[in-house]
């Protein structure tokens, strides 16, 4: 992706930035700080680690500020850098638990993890009621057990409300792939939540 190459090139340079660039960066990036930190926190599930990832990503972004074109999607641009930073850190720390998730993430499109139509969902007669029973941490737990690409897709599209084109830029895949991943991901999430609901004895409750 041209944008990503540009980012890497700029980041690799040791040049400092002037006050004007710093101000421009703050104006672009600060409004998205909460989204970036939230995303990192959901992925790492650790406040300090999330802050470290976001800080590293933000400093890369600041050094690459000249590669950002005004009028384009700043949030998507920052998320792209965050994702790359997150993956780099993940790869660098081989002993982490998350390493397993990277290995398990391919191939997304060929997976058949979702339930057969009719197999589960007639039990979800009131999906809203069922989903309301899950706390945020349950949702995050289920989300982060999904393959990385699926997890990122749902975080970008459904949680952070990026449009498909923006998410496609971040993930460096075609828009159609984002749509199919999002659809598949929701199905996988539904399956995981259903299992949790079964374990907690909620399924019969929801049926009633």
């Amino acid at each position: 992706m041209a944008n990503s190459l540009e980012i890497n090139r700029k980041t690799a340079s040791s040049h400092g930035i002037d006050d004007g660039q710093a101000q421009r960066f703050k104006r672009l990036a600060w409004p998205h700080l909460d989204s970036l930190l939230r995303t990192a926190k959901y992925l790492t599930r650790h406040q300090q680690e999330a802050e470290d990832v976001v800080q590293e990503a933000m400093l890369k972004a600041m050094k690459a500020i000249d590669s950002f074109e005004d009028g384009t999607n700043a949030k998507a641009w920052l998320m792209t850098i965050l994702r790359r930073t997150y993956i780099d850190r993940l790869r660098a720390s081989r002993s982490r638990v998350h390493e397993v998730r990277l290995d398990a993430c391919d191939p997304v499109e060929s997976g058949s993890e979702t339930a057969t139509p009719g197999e589960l969902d007639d039990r979800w007669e009131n999906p809203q009621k069922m989903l309301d029973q899950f706390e945020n941490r349950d949702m995050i737990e289920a989300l982060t057990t999904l393959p990385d690409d699926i997890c990122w897709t749902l975080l970008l599209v459904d949680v952070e409300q990026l449009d498909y084109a923006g998410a496609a830029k971040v993930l460096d895949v075609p828009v159609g792939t984002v749509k199919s991943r999002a659809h598949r991901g929701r199905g996988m999430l539904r399956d995981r939540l259903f299992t949790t609901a079964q374990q907690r004895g909620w399924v019969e409750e929801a049926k009633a």
Partner: protein
Amino acid sequence: MRTNHSDDKLEQAIRARLARLATAPVDTARLECQLEEAMTKIRSAPVARLVNWWIPIAAAVAAIVVISATVNVRLLEPDQVPIAATPSLIAGLHHEVITGGPFTIPVANIEQATQAIAVRWSDAPALPMPADCEVMSCCIHHVEGRKVACMLLRLRGKLITMVVAHTKDLTRDDSVKATQDNQRYAVYTKGNLNMVCMQHNGISVWLVGEFPHKELAQLLPKKWMTS
């Protein structure tokens, strides 16, 4: 048997539940402090290297740049088109001002703010005095190379940013305009922020905060609303 309708309903419910994760509060305070510190270091580091190596060359280049810039500015000035300040831009400035930063100057009143701004910007526009507000700090920001003065105010415990610029540099976005009580000012909303813009004698002023538009507008003297 499941139907397409129930599929959609379930998928929509999952989407809605995921969207609610974005409403969970996130504390960015510590991160912001860390970033400010790191940004300051990055900005000062290259200067230190230059001092060791390149004083004569840097001085010569700086002189050339200053002369060129001055000539360019004078040549370009008559054709300079003002930037239309979008609500996002102004909201971004507000966010930046309330976040603070290394260039923020604490001040107690409008006179101190005027002095502090004038030291750094000889051609700065006159700062109006908003009624009933406590003045907290001021700073100068750059919007696409144009200077704007920003003041952080407090009214009944809530923060308001006042952005002041020469209209030839920064002007209001006329896509949204409101007329109320024969007082003309542009109004905008971005998220939970309301903002009003008034222009008078070649100066544009924006007030941004979590107050109704009319209340923000009334903070400025009447003359600002009749232009």
